[in-house]
Structure formats: C-alpha cells, structure tokens
C-alpha cells in the first residue's frame, strides 16, 4: 500500500494552486457570484491552456488520459479558492458520461467539449425523484419528451443538456438543446448557477437519444461515482482552507489580553479540526482511487462511506470555523461564511448523509472484514 501522489498528479495539483492564486481570489468570487453566467471566456481559455478540458479523457479525443485523482486534485484547489467556475458540471460530468457511452455521436459531442466549442450540462435530478437517478419522472411518449428536471448545474451558460427520461420501461439518455426547454434560472446555495427545465412535448429527432436500457443506468452510476468523489475533493479543499484561516486567526486575534489560541478550549477545537481533516484526507485518497473501479459494489461502498463521512466531519469543521471566528464568521464580508455555504451545498449533492448511510448498509450488510 502506498499513499504518495505520482509526480504527474503532484504537478497537476501544484499548477492548479498557482493558477488559482494568480487568477482567482475572494474579489473575483464576489463578482462572479453576482453574474448570471459563470463561464468567463478568459478563464475558460486559461483552463484549456492548462489542459484541464482534456485531462480526464482519453488521448483519442484529444485528452490526456488523466485519472480521477488528478481531477480531484484540481477540484480540491477549486474548493480551496471558492472558485465557482463550473469545471466539474460542464466538463467532467458530461464528458465522462459521453466517454462511457462511447458512440460516435457521443464522442463527437465530447470532442467539442474538449475543444471548448460547446457547453453541455447534465440533468439527472428532479424534485420528485430525490437522489434516485435511475427512475426519472420525465418520459418520452409518441416521440415527444415531457416532464421536468430540477437542480441542473449549468453555470448559466450551457447550450445543450444531457437528459435522462423513461421510454416505456427503459431508461434513456438524450441530448436536448436548452433553447427548446422552458428554463428558470437561479443561484444555488454555494453561489453556482442552476436551472430548472420543463419539457413541453419536445419532438425527439434522430440522433438525440444517445443511450438506452441497462447500459444507460450503468454509465450514469459510473459518472455519479466520479461526482461523489469530486464533491469530497471540493469539500476537502474548503475544509483545509477553513482550518488554515482559523488557525491563523486564533494566533492573531486577542481577547482578554491574549491570543485566543492560547486558550485550551480553542486549542482543542483546532486539534479536533486537524484530526478530522487528516481522516478526511485519507477518505479523499480512498474514494479517488475506488470511485474509478469496475466493481460496482466496492465503488459504491467507497463513495457512500466517503460522502457520509464528509457530510458529518467536513460540515463540522465549517461550523467550528464560524464558532471560533465569532460574529465576523457569519458575515457576507468574510469568506468563512461562504465556505460554510459551499460545505452545506456539497453535503447535499449526489446523496445526503442518510441516503449514503442507508445505501452503505444495504450494500455491505456491514459484515466487517476477513
């Protein structure tokens, strides 16, 4: 067993950290927060130059054949910087989905994502189906798509959306131009741009259906596993940033004539954050390796364990950071509260804590080991 990041992965992580330090800060974040499109063309161009658009995909589509851990190290830095660029939602999620489908049509679309010619979002969820991505309420009847999708993270700038729907008993995945949907846009808890879509009998034309049947379920599960791992990566980045800021604050902020970090209770809070963070990092390594596995049971066990743990401990770190900062921690003015919102947000995407605990229990029957 070894837990060292490869030279390549370390380089990806270092580059991401440097890039964000130079091009993204709390001021940029606040500006972006108030914009309706989160795809700044200049930054998107830089991401392309850095190779991020092709990183998770095979060389045959112009990618770099990177692994999930590489992407996770980027997303960790995005989380640490509070960056709202929808890299995961508009590159990794649709891209992996299209790659796994692998048809000529799908690969063509993937290529246009890699080449920065098209922004594609994924619509897996709707209000009525909870976290179950395999039983959407939207359906295709007599060649027309009707129904709705909610919580579509499209960054306010996608032109196409990959939609799941039922066709008879089958699950299908189709690509729909956003302009043919009724769209309501809003800001999500973490500040990112979401959309609700209503499909009013959209006529299904040739080539719109990308995948159908059991295969569709399989590839969606694979992609959701990536997204669960990346939720953890984003939360880790944020939790670590919170810890570092809070430690720094405890060393400088004075009350009753001494730095609050000299008080034992504050020291113990910070140690709790530190030891939780260590375990969060272990879980991030674990899930980044296992979410890519072919063995669905092992993959889903890892993802559920990691997300349940993050929803507990990373959220606790964010709560603790506010507590130690005191009043200033709950203001819009300081980044601490924004990290807190990010953390709550990520604890609810792709399955909340109870959902994952139940899934873990059903997957394993918790039989220990050996």
């Amino acid at each position, binding site marked *: *067993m070894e837990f060292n990041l490869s030279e390549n992965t370390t380089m990806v992580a270092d580059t991401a950290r440097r890039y964000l330090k130079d091009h993204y800060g709390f001021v940029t974040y606040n500006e972006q927060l108030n914009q309706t499109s989160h795809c700044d063309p200049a930054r998107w161009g830089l991401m392309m130059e850095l190779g991020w658009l092709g990183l998770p995909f095979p060389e045959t589509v112009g990618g770099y054949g990177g692994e999930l851990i590489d992407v996770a190290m980027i997303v960790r830095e995005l989380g640490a910087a509070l960056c709202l660029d929808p890299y995961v939602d508009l590159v990794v999620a649709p891209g992996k989905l299209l790659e796994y489908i692998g048809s000529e049509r799908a690969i063509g679309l993937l290529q246009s994502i890699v080449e920065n010619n098209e922004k594609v979002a994924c619509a897996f969820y709707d209000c009525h189906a909870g976290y179950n991505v395999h039983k959407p309420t939207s359906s295709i009847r007599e060649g027309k798509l009707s129904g709705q999708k909610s919580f579509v993270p499209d960054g306010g700038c996608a032109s196409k959306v990959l939609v799941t729907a039922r066709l008879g008993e089958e699950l299908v995945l189709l690509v729909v131009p956003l302009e043919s949907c009724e769209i309501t846009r809003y800001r999500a808890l973490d500040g990112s741009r979401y959309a609700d879509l209503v499909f009013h009998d959209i006529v299904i034309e040739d080539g719109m259906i990308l995948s159908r049947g059991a295969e569709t379920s399989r590839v969606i599960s694979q992609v959701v596993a990536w997204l669960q791992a990346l939720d953890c990566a984003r939360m880790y980045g944020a939790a670590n940033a919170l810890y570092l800021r809070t*430690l720094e604050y405890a060393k400088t902020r004075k009350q009753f004539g001494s730095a609050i970090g*000299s008080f034992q209770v504050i*020291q113990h809070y910070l140690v709790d954050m*530190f030891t939780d963070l260590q375990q969060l990092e272990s879980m991030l390594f674990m899930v980044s*390796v296992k979410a890519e596995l072919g063995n669905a049971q092992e993959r889903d066990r890892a993802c559920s364990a990691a997300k349940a743990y993050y929803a507990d401990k990373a959220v606790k770190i964010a709560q603790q950071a506010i507590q130690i900062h005191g009043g200033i921690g709950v203001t819009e003015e300081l980044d601490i509260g924004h990290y807190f919102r990010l953390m709550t947000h990520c604890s609810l995407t792709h399955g909340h804590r109870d959902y994952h*605990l*139940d899934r*873990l229990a059903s997957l394993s029957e918790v039989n220990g080991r050996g």
Partner: protein
Amino acid sequence: MNLEFTQEELDFQKSIRAWMRENVPEALERVSALGNMPTKSQQQQWERCLGKQGWLALTWPEQYGGPGWTATQRYIFDIERAMAGAPPTSPFGVAMVGPVIYTFGSPEQKERWLPGITSGETLWCQGYSEPNAGSDLASLKTRAERKQDHYLVNGQKIWTTQAHWADMMFCLVRTDPEAKKQQGISFLLIDMKTPGIEIRPIYSIDGHHHLNEVYFTDVEVPLENLVGQEGMGWTIAKFLLTHERTTIAGVADSYYALARMKQAIEDVPYYTDKPSARRRMAELEVELMALEYTNFRTVAATDEGKPFGPESSGLKIKGTELQQKMSQAMVEIGGLMSLAWDSPSVVGNESFNNAPRRYNFLRACTIYGGSNEIQKNVLAKMLLGL
C-alpha cells in the same frame, strides 16, 4: 497511490489466517465473541503460544527476538488476530518495557529480561500513575533512595493494570528530590515479589478487577535494575510515548466488534428495529473506514522509513472515541437486553447482556495512556504551533 496489498502480503495474510484457525483456542474465541475479558491463564496461554511461534514481540528487531516483519505485515497480523477472536496482547512487556530495555538497557539487562518477554513467560505491569498526579506524570512522588547496593523505594502507585497478575513492574521513581520536576526521575525494574510491596484491588465500573493500588514500604531494589542513567526516567518515558504504534488506533478490534454487533442483531429473531440498527452500524463503519485509511497511511509511511511522530496522538484520540461510540451503540441497540447485569442465564441474547460491561470498561480508554485532552495539548503544541 496504490491501496491494495501486494501478492506477497496477500499470501502472508492467507498463512496467518490459516495459523489462527488452527491455534486460537475455542474457549478464547468464545470469550471474545461475547465481549468478555480472558482470564489470566487464558491470556497467558495465548501469549505463550504466540511466543513459541516467535510472533509475540511483533515490533521488535530480529536480533532481540522479533519476527522481522514490515509495518504492513504487522498490521495484517493484527487484523487476522482480531478477526479470529483472539485478544490483543498485553502491552506492558512487549510494547512498552521491551523496547526500553533493548534501547537503553545494559547487555546484562537485555540478556536477563528480553527472553521472558518474547516468550510470554514474564508478565509486566506499569508503575507510572500516582494519586493526585493523573496525566501530570512529572509530579510523581514515589521516592527511591540510593543505598550501598540497592535503592530503597517508598510511595504509592495507582491505576496499575494487572499488577495482581504481574511478575515485574517497570516504574518511574524520583531519585533526586532537589532536581526540577522532570529531572530527577529514574526508570526502575521491580520484582513484584519483593517484600514491602502491597497490592490492593480497585474494582472498576465494569464489575471487574483489572486495576490496583500498589504500595511500596522500604522496598529494596537492586542497583542493577536501574535502566539507563539515574535521572534519565523522563527521557525514557517520552521515548515510550512516541514509540512506533501502528495498532494504537485499535482498528482491528473495532472491526471485530462491528462484526459481533451485526451477528448479535441477526441472532435476535424478534428484533424489530433492524433498519435503524443497520444505519447506526453503517455510521460506525464509515468512521472506522476513515480511521483505518488514516492508520494505513501511517503504516505505509513507517514502511517507507518515515518517522512516526505526534500523529499517534491523533490516532489514539480517534480510535478511543470510536471504541466508546461502538460500545455505546451496542448497549443502545440491545435495549432492555442490556439491563441484565448479573443473570445466571442468558436473557434474550448473551452479547447484548454483556454489552454494558464493555461499555463501562471503555469509559476508561479516553483516560488511560494519557487522557485525550493531554493528547490534544500535545498536538496543539507540536503540530499546530499554539
């Protein structure tokens, strides 16, 4: 990043598993399965069995009788040991005084004491804690005066686990009352049969007798039983605290406890609340996984020759908190069945009947070995710079 065991490690695991199947006595397995503590003779018989195999002093260098395993192999061994229903070995000889003797001891001391530890023949106890000292080890008062050919020891130790079983005690004593608090402390080996030693039992809230008070009245300890130099006790105590501990998190025994919990739930046919019990177990398993992978990282780091520092404090905190949580879950899932404290027959389910004893016992785990608050102070100072 590679989270799999190598083929050699898997083969090793297989051979250990087979050996455990052959060698763990059924009676011992049953004791563990019910969450009980082995008796002295059960414990000693098992440790001798490991000793004969050369597997008792796991962490030791080969020259002193260790098996020469990597940290990963030791970890695998610990998992297989626990899952086979064998208890952890007593830490006092193998994990504590042994490494002190082979690191600081004279050639004569090594020759005299190490073989009895690796074979499981000599049982040890630890004379650190004193009344009113608690985790503040440096405030100890037990006095050792240097006479012609011996030290004259007077004072009192407390919380001495298994003093009533032990042949020998390793002991911190004050040899120089004039010196500053942490200086003037020395490390002595004391034969428990020496006249002047009196052991009084302390019954703990699990209803058992593991703990003792030990009184020393004019106890004569030969000068050759001093380890290292006079006044070096504090250095040795610190060495002991940061001595490599790849199993301090207790992951293996927690996995075993989780498996027992599952079994107990399945064994109660009329158990009505299985879904909530399962979610509770999943919750515990998640925390155990996080602990396990953190522990794996320290094991892997140890195998790469990286020093293992104050992180062990973090593993102690997390590991003991989880042990407490798990034992509490067992009691609460057991519900009414956990109320049978002293029944002549099984009430519902024996594991649940026994659950509160373990829960009671484990209240101590966040206190012993340096309370978790002390561990946090160590981390705040050494890692956080506070």
